């Protein structure tokens, strides 16, 4: 174990909540977190897209993580936030979550990569499950999420 510790990489995650499940988003992807605002609907967009918002003069498409994960739609509350993801191509995407909890640092040891059956056909929407104290955090695979959206 100790020899592993040398090469262990610590990664920071923003922990968000959908209902009672906690998800982690790698902090490198996160550009900004803003309060929920009313998006402008875009006709004929993918069903999980709520529309577009104005982020300081830039138009940013906003999707609902709940709808993407086929959960029920929920009215926004005062805790609802939009996480602005910035991708490698400098494109931005807003992800609506129920609540933003905290920022945690997980070392590689804390992450269980094989929690999911890799034989599943679909590319996993999670990179693994992180253990932070007593709580479990599902770590979102943003890259595959973006790929997934692209192909829709």
């Amino acid at each position, binding site marked *: 174990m100790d020899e592993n510790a040398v090469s262990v990489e610590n990664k920071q995650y923003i922990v968000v909540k959908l209902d009672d499940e906690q998800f982690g988003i790698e902090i490198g992807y996160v550009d900004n977190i803003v309060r929920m605002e009313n998006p*402008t609907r*875009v006709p004929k967009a*993918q069903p999980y*897209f709520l529309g*577009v918002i104005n982020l300081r003069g830039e*138009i940013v498409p906003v999707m609902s993580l709940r709808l993407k994960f086929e959960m029920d739609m929920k009215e926004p509350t005062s805790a609802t936030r939009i996480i602005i993801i910035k991708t490698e191509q400098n494109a*931005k*995407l807003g992800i609506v979550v129920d609540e933003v909890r905290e920022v945690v640092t997980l070392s590689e040891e804390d992450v269980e990569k094989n929690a999911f059956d890799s034989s599943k056909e679909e590319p996993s929407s999670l990179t693994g499950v992180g253990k932070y104290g007593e709580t479990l955090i599902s770590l979102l695979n943003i890259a595959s999420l*973006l790929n997934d959206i692209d192909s829709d």
Partner: protein
Amino acid sequence: MDISQYLEIFIDESKEHLQTLNDQVLILESEPENEDTINEIFRAAHSLKGMAGTMGFKRMQRLTHDMENVFSEIRNGKMNVTADLVDVVFKCLDALEVYVSSIQETADEGTEDNDEIISLLNGCLGSGSKQESPAEQPKAAPAETKPASSSDTDKMKFKQMAIADFERNAITEAQATGKHVFGATVYVQESCILKAARAFLVFKGIESIGEIIKSEPSVQDIEDEKFDFDFSMFVITEKSGEDLYKAVMDVFEIEECVYEEISLSDAPVVEEAKKEDVKDTAKTSENTGEDTSKKPDKKPAGKPVVNRSVRVDIEKLDDLMNQVSELIIAKNGLVSVGAVEGNSQGFDEQIEYLERITTSIHESVMKVRMVPIESVVNRFPRMIRDLSKKLNKEMELIMSGEETELDRTVIDEIGDPLMHMLRNAADHGLESTLERIQKGKPQVGTIRLNAYQDGNNVTIEVSDDGAGVDVEKVKASAIRKGSITEEQAAYMSDKEAVDLLFMPAFSTAEKISDISGRGVGLDVVKNKIEGLGGDVEVVSKLGEGTTFIVRLPLTLAIIQALMVEIRNEKYALPLNSIDTVVDVPVSEVRYVQSNEVINLRGTVIPLIRLDEILDCEPAESDSESLIVVIAKKGDKQAGLVIDNLIGQQEIVIKPLGKYINIPRMISGATILGDGEVALIIDSNTLV
């Protein structure tokens, strides 16, 4: 040495030089004796060679060098310009273009040696002039600096400078007041890339301690980098020669500086020596066909003044543009606040003031982004010449309005469509020379490209005086391809039939040539132009010719729009595609083939329910009348049904971002005064 930072400049300038070469060689073809042209060509070829050499592109340098040799012979009157020669030169220019584009893509010139072209060039030399040594080195500079470094006196090139009367007076005066007058020659390191900048620093350094009364080459030439690796000058200063030396050597990349205090008695003698010297260099340079050393001297005085311009990264302009956009949004915000409060007169005045400023800033920024279409169309004469040879048709291209300006983004995109239309005109439009003679038309076919500004649009017309579009042939071809039925064809107006040309995979040419006629063409042209927010139209008269009319918006980023409401959502409709807005009682809506239409002043116009197309929630109650925006696209019209009119507003077009799927009818989004986002409906896709 890291040259990557100069690569961009190199590519830009190489392209410019190649364009000049192409233009001038075209002129030369028709006026083989034009000396200005030959000089111009020689200058461009020489600069190109120098640049390629500095950047270490040996193959490119070698090719340009051999080309330059040919022009050197022509310039010296030892060779005549022949048709074969022009062909070879064009081949050579094409090969150079390949080098440049390869460098642009990979920062490497590739491995093509183009030996064939080089031997063709040398063949021209061999046949036209008496002798030429092929083993001669491309770079003459080392050969020339070597003898110079042999002794110190030779290095003092300033001794060869002529002294004019007024300079003589200045020197006498200076010496009378106890100042020193030095002659100095400064040598720049040969590895130095920005020679002009170094020279400038040298001048600056010297000017801090004294006054430069004369320099050779002239300051202008030095600034333009029109010197080899040394330049000379006379300096009047109160300081000592050592101070002068120090000031010069403080500049980075300066090889050496030689100086001597001069007295006037030397001057006349020196002047004679100079003459001899020039003769010498002239002799040697004629032998080698290379005359870099005397080039600055030979510059005609009437050299065009350098453009007062700077190169600006387009991204910086985009940033500026975005900031102006922001300003406009902020202004719109204030306007809407003002409309609510609305009672303070001072506030209104200030808003009007702000509005004036934003409008004029917007205009200036737009102007900065404007580029004359010349930069796109200047390659067309060459293309038509080549096509003329290839197709064996006599034709000429007459261009006008090249100075018409368009937004940079439009300019970048418009080249291919225009080229397509010109090829089309050359290949399909114009008849063969024989046919033209039979028809009694002038033997030489004419293709015209005319550009002009028309309100908020720029119109580009491409016309030919060829056979025109045979409507029946087009219809027959469309029926054969199954695009239309025979009945449809029978009822089709000529204009509609001509528009069939823009259908995908449509070509009436029986023969497929490698120029055009593969059927990929006009539909692509149309798509591209519509993608730029413009439209294209064909006017044709059988037997007399065809004209393609392209209309493009002046700017893409900021437009006037009509803001409308559908349910509780706001949308923007670009004003330039809107005819009128009418109120239509529901009872006047008629049905044609179960589609809703209205009859507006005798024209039947189909109705489009925007709420249905945009998937809005159904209306709660049926109103008694409809608000209909009449949108137009060419001759076609459609009535867009909306719920409410908000008014006219200047809007900034923004992209919707990646990832989200956007229907074709939404062309972008804009931010309203209150920060809300409204989508822009492209009515062209609906009509």
